């Protein structure tokens, strides 16, 4: 393999690699704005200037191919001076907006001005003025003064989102970004440009001014918006989710996530319609009751039915652990085989980028557990028939809204003797239920989703319910979480009385006299490993931050051991 020398050390490289690629791969950071590992090279920010021996001028590391015997200096006096000059040019027309700029705190211009700038300005002329609040599309706001014309947003739209909607107009210091005439910047991936914009020129309208970045904690998790399971960070302040951002995972979502996930997949967690505490229907009204009362009542109700009179709807929105315990509960406690799930497929709503037509994060997980969309002829379509003919008298619904999927169910529900619902938020089905349990959302629990590629990925709790405590449960802490007291208004979080479904089910099973003695969701996961070959030998640590690719060929048609 050919070798290139960077800062005195020799590195091997594959022909065709640029200097910056070799350097990044070996942990040498060459400052850059316009270069992005997943975008084409445009070479217009000039920040990555390095000195190459025998070349008369400084060259840009992002577009200069590494060559055998090349000697590169990234920290020589000439290279440093060169970068200082580039910084000076970039800052000439850059406004002093940091106090009102959402990017502040995670801004590459701030970062490099500090690391590679001269620390003072020689520019005494008037800065040029440009439009500051341009709505490029439904979610993205553009501030022309802050733009450093790196063209990342343009290249992203063209190359990754496959939607050529943005372009430069004008030249010199008048250059700015616009959408093509008559076009909106409205592709389904538009918000990724907010992440890759090295400055605060592009901001997320949904998040604008909600919080400073240093006030929040970030928790590694998985987006529940579709079967892709994009890796995300959940940003939380005072127990409230304020934004989601994508987290790099090259085998799943790269650096990206879709706008639907980013905008719609967290608001329900802090919504007003959250189910708070267990409820029982008394005189037609759902009344909040104590956990013990709800559990005892559930047990006495469930004992009334023969096993085959009960139907259980599992949930592709819930974790693997929730569904495993549900399956075990159905088979061992209720002794019923009537367990199936309600698929959420939006035909055609799929592309070659990220979005999948299966709008649930864990249907592969259910299939691996042996839970299908229909069982014994029972499915979401046929269920109403079974209820009408009184074959099914009791329905247990976990984290789903079957009435919303099949409105026929609404008319036959009065034929049922008992409905038990585990729900995060109130929905059409909770309106009819007799027993309602508050399920924790994906952001409040540990657990595993298996995406459509068969990659098992971990959720971590980002916000806490009543039964959790941030410090004790090892959750991510912001400075405010660490030091807040009950006397500080900024540390009086809204917490819901909710629990992971597997925990509630275990409690009910114990009431029946069964030994469902899991302490943590990892205990459940390890038991899944003991029962299913696809998961054998796995624990949470082996899933890591980027998930674990399961060997799916082994599992097809495997008999369920529960």
């Amino acid at each position, binding site marked *: 393999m050919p070798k290139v020398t960077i800062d005195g050390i020799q590195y091997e490289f594959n022909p065709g690699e640029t200097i910056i690629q070799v350097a990044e791969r070996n942990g040498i950071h060459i400052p850059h704005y316009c270069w992005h590992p997943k975008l084409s090279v445009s070479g217009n920010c000039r920040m990555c200037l390095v000195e190459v021996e025998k070349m008369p001028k400084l060259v840009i590391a992002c577009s200069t191919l590494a060559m055998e015997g090349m000697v590169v200096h990234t920290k020589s006096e000439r290279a440093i001076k060169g970068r200082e000059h580039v910084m000076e040019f970039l800052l000439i027309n850059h406004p002093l907006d940091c106090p*009102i700029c959402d990017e502040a705190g995670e801004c590459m211009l701030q970062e490099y001005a500090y690391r590679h700038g001269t620390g003072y300005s020689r520019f005494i002329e008037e800065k040029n003025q440009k439009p500051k609040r341009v709505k490029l599309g439904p979610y993205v706001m553009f501030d022309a003064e802050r733009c450093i014309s790196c063209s990342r947003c343009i290249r992203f739209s063209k190359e990754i989102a496959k939607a050529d909607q943005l372009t430069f107009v004008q030249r010199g210091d008048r250059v700015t970004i616009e959408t093509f005439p008559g076009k909106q910047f409205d592709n389904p991936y538009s918000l990724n440009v907010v992440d890759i914009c090295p400055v605060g020129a592009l901001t997320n309208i949904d998040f604008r001014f909600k919080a400073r970045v240093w006030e929040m904690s970030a928790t590694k998790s998985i987006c529940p918006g579709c079967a892709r399971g994009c890796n995300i960070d959940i940003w939380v302040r005072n127990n409230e989710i304020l934004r989601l951002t994508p987290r790099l995972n090259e085998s799943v979502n790269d650096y990206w996530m879709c706008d639907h996930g980013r905008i719609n997949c967290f608001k329900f967690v802090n919504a007003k319609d959250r189910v708070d505490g267990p409820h029982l229907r008394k005189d037609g009204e759902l009344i909040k009751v104590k956990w013990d009362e709800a559990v005892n009542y559930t047990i006495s109700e469930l004992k009334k039915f023969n096993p085959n009179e009960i139907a259980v709807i599992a949930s592709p929105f819930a974790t693997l652990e929730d569904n495993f315990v549900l399956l075990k509960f159905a088979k061992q406690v209720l002794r019923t085989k009537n367990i199936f799930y309600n698929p959420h497929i939006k035909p055609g709503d799929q592309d070659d980028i990220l979005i999948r037509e299966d709008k649930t994060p864990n249907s592969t997980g259910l299939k691996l557990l042996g839970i299908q969309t229909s069982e014994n002829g029972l499915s979401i379509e046929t269920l109403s028939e079974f209820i009408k003919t009184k074959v099914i008298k009791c329905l247990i619904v976990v984290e789903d809204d079957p009435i919303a999927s099949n409105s026929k169910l609404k008319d036959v529900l009065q034929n049922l003797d008992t409905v038990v619902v585990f729900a995060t938020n109130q929905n059409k089905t909770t309106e009819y239920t007799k027993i309602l349990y508050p399920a924790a959302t994906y952001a409040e629990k540990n657990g595993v989703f298996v995406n459509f590629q068969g990659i098992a990925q971990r959720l971590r709790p980002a916000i806490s319910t009543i039964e959790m405590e941030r410090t004790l449960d090892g959750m991510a802490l912001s400075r405010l979480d660490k030091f807040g007291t009950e006397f500080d208004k900024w540390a009086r979080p809204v917490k819901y009385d909710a629990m992971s479904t597997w925990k509630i089910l275990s409690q009910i099973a114990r009431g029946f006299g069964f030994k469902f003695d899991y302490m943590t969701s990892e205990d459940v996961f390890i038991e899944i490993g003991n029962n299913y070959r696809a998961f054998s030998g796995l624990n949470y640590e082996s899933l890591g931050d980027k998930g674990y690719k399961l060997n799916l060929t082994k599992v097809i048609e495997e008999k369920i051991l529960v």
Partner: protein
Amino acid sequence: MAVKKRKKDLHFFERIYLVEIIKGLLLTLKHLFKPKFTLQYPEEKIEQAPSYRGRPVLVMDNGKERCVACGLCSRVCPALAIQVQASETEDEKERYPVLFEINMLRCIFCGFCEEVCPEEAIVMSKDYELVFTRYDDAIFGKDKLLVPVEKLKDRLEFVRTQMRK
């Protein structure tokens, strides 16, 4: 253990006490006839110098706060006394604080908030009278924090000259 002898012991006249107490009484007598400087607080109050650091207040310019809700004061505050919640405004400054609260029980009157503020929007006032009977009363919102710029002229002048802002 042997008792250590004091380096400089009282001499004879000091030990007999009588001379010293007469000296003391004479001093009191002398001040009885000098001009008084005791103030009858709370009826009378001291006019503090511009360098005095009383409770921090927000500068109100043209009926609106200057603050842009950047959160820097909140970040720098060593006592975590300040909470700022930003929101968008149609004004040129784009950003303003919908909520700005200082917990006067946390504040240690260090003046860091004033020093860090990029907008000269928060300054230390001359107000030192802070009495509360409940924790929540000690949390001052915008209603108590906003002070017209005219009343803060000398402090703003002081900040500019002394801190060379």
